């Protein structure tokens, strides 16, 4: 009898252990609204998360020249190797596609969200909301998406039409690349093999002895 009870006790203990993750463990504490508000900076395409405030193209030009132009170029053309933010429209099918706010970004929210969280590079989250709106308005102007009198805010956000809004589709590899599932050839898979390209010809591999390349 006592053996049976012991066995039962063991069974209960084991069952308890197995199901430990099926219940709440009461670890951590409730996050306060103030804690959440300080970090909750994301903005969605439907406008959810847009901050209050507004910014004009004119004000944006000032902010852009002081905080952005050194890397992105005075007209958004890029200085050096930093991302180009303007131009490139019509280039996506070419052999040298240029992806900018005007040519590639499908959603205005993406630009606002990114500038707000990560720009200027090296001084992230230093812009006031009005400055974020203004500098994004200016980049829209640089891309001929809005005119010089435009003021960006929660109220005007939905009126902006991004040129490449219809430029994306969800991952379709399991259909479009269905041919990659199958039984591979093992012998005499091709008549001859010819070398068609060599890395050595391009010669861009870093060398431990070489000095860093200036670009």
């Amino acid at each position, binding site marked *: 009898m006592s053996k049976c009870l012991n066995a039962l006790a063991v069974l209960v203990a084991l069952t308890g252990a197995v199901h*430990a993750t099926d219940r*709440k*463990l009461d*670890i*951590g*504490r*409730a*996050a306060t609204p103030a*804690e959440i508000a300080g*970090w*909750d900076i*994301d*903005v*969605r*395409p439907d406008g959810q998360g847009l901050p209050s405030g507004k910014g004009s193209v004119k004000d944006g030009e000032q902010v852009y020249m002081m905080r952005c132009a050194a890397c992105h170029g005075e007209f958004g053309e890029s200085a050096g190797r*930093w991302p180009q933010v303007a131009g490139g429209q019509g280039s*996506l*099918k070419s*052999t040298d*596609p240029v*992806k900018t706010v005007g040519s*590639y*970004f499908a959603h205005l929210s*993406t630009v606002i*969200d*990114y500038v707000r969280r*990560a720009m200027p*590079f*090296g001084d992230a989250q230093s812009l006031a909301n009005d400055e974020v709106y203004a500098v994004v308005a200016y980049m829209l102007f640089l891309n001929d998406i809005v005119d010089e009198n435009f003021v960006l805010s929660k109220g005007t956000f939905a009126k902006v039409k991004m040129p490449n809004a219809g*430029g*994306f*589709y*969800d*991952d379709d*590899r399991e259909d*479009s690349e269905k*041919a*990659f*599932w*199958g039984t*591979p*050839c*093992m*012998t*005499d*898979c*091709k008549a*001859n*093999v*010819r*070398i*068609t*390209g*060599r*890395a*050595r010809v391009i010669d861009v*591999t*870093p060398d*431990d002895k070489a000095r860093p390349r200036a*670009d």
Partner: protein
Amino acid sequence: MDETPETRTTRRRLLTAAGAALATPAFAGNPKNLPPNVPDWTRQLGDGVAVRPYGQPSKHEAHVIRRDVQWLTASRESSVSFTPLHELDGIITPSGLCFERHHGGIAEIDPEDYRLIIHGLVEKPLIFTLADLKRFPRVNRIHFLECAANSGMEWRGAQLNGCQYTHGMVHCVEYTGVPLSVLLKEAGVKPNARWLLAEGADSAAMTRSIPLAKALDDCLVAYRMNGEMLRPEQGYPARLVVPGWEGNVWVKWLRRLKLGDEPWFAREETSKYTDLMESGKARQFTFVMDAKSVITSPSPQAPLHQKGFTVISGLAWSGRGKIRRVDVSLDGGRNWREATLDGLVLDKAVSRFYAETEWTGQEMLLQSRAIDETGYVQPTKDELRKIRGVSSIYHNNGIQTWLVKPDGEVENVEVS
């Protein structure tokens, strides 16, 4: 003939003088250390215990390091360094050699000041300390992490000479962490939640949207790698682990998880990490890493030094599951034979393969081809280009070709 260092070096000199191309290992050592002599390390005491409280590799392995390609990016804070795959074996990448990809440099987070917030479409928004995370039930999982841009420089042709540069944005370690499903259960996910936003605490505040189904399936919030705490470069003190999916969604320095009913279309899932096709339209949310493999030895940074018995070695992995088989070709893909998978073959982890051959100094065009448990066969680069063009940057899993020359040197080439 007795093989003494003297005769070896002399023979090497003779061979070189005679113009023989094959490089034999140059003897750069000290003959006094070789038998019948007794070297100093046998005669004298070495360092005692705790002289090296956190052990480092031998000083003779100083060349085994991550390397970057400076012309690739505008700054080192938003850049990448590559794993020296040609120097490694087995399936586990040493923590300090795991490739780095940062978008705003390495965040140096005091573990006392670390916080993770879960909010949005949940019953109860929660905030956790690192100590809280460590109290939860935990699991250990070995997974590969591959940057979606791995091999991205090779779309338009063979460019970089070395698998460190062509394939070095992949690593594989053991993670310890809390299943994300356990943390989400603690907060109580509302029925209309479909997506999860993961956000980093670095100066890029990196964000990605992840379908809730994946988050509940096999994702972890990990705080350890290979037993030790995460390295700062890998997201110390906590990162997301998203098995089989592109590295960019494995958000490092994880500070916030937000539940929502739609994706966020953050910069890293729209302007970056989308795959531009020849049509001018781009694929988005291409999360899964297709099956891929590469021969790590011989390779351009690991040339052949000896004729005779040779082990060809490499890595294979798939974001869809386990590796079922790896084939190796010595003639540029005309004929194939099955390689041996050695050691653990795990779900969404790298597998190590070997193929033995007798190298007589003939030219070889080495290739490897991975096949995963779903039956996906790693395609050639040209097969990929036919569908995707050459501008998609990401997800280049095409078959790699190494040209082994009669002198044992190896070059990155492409073949018809």
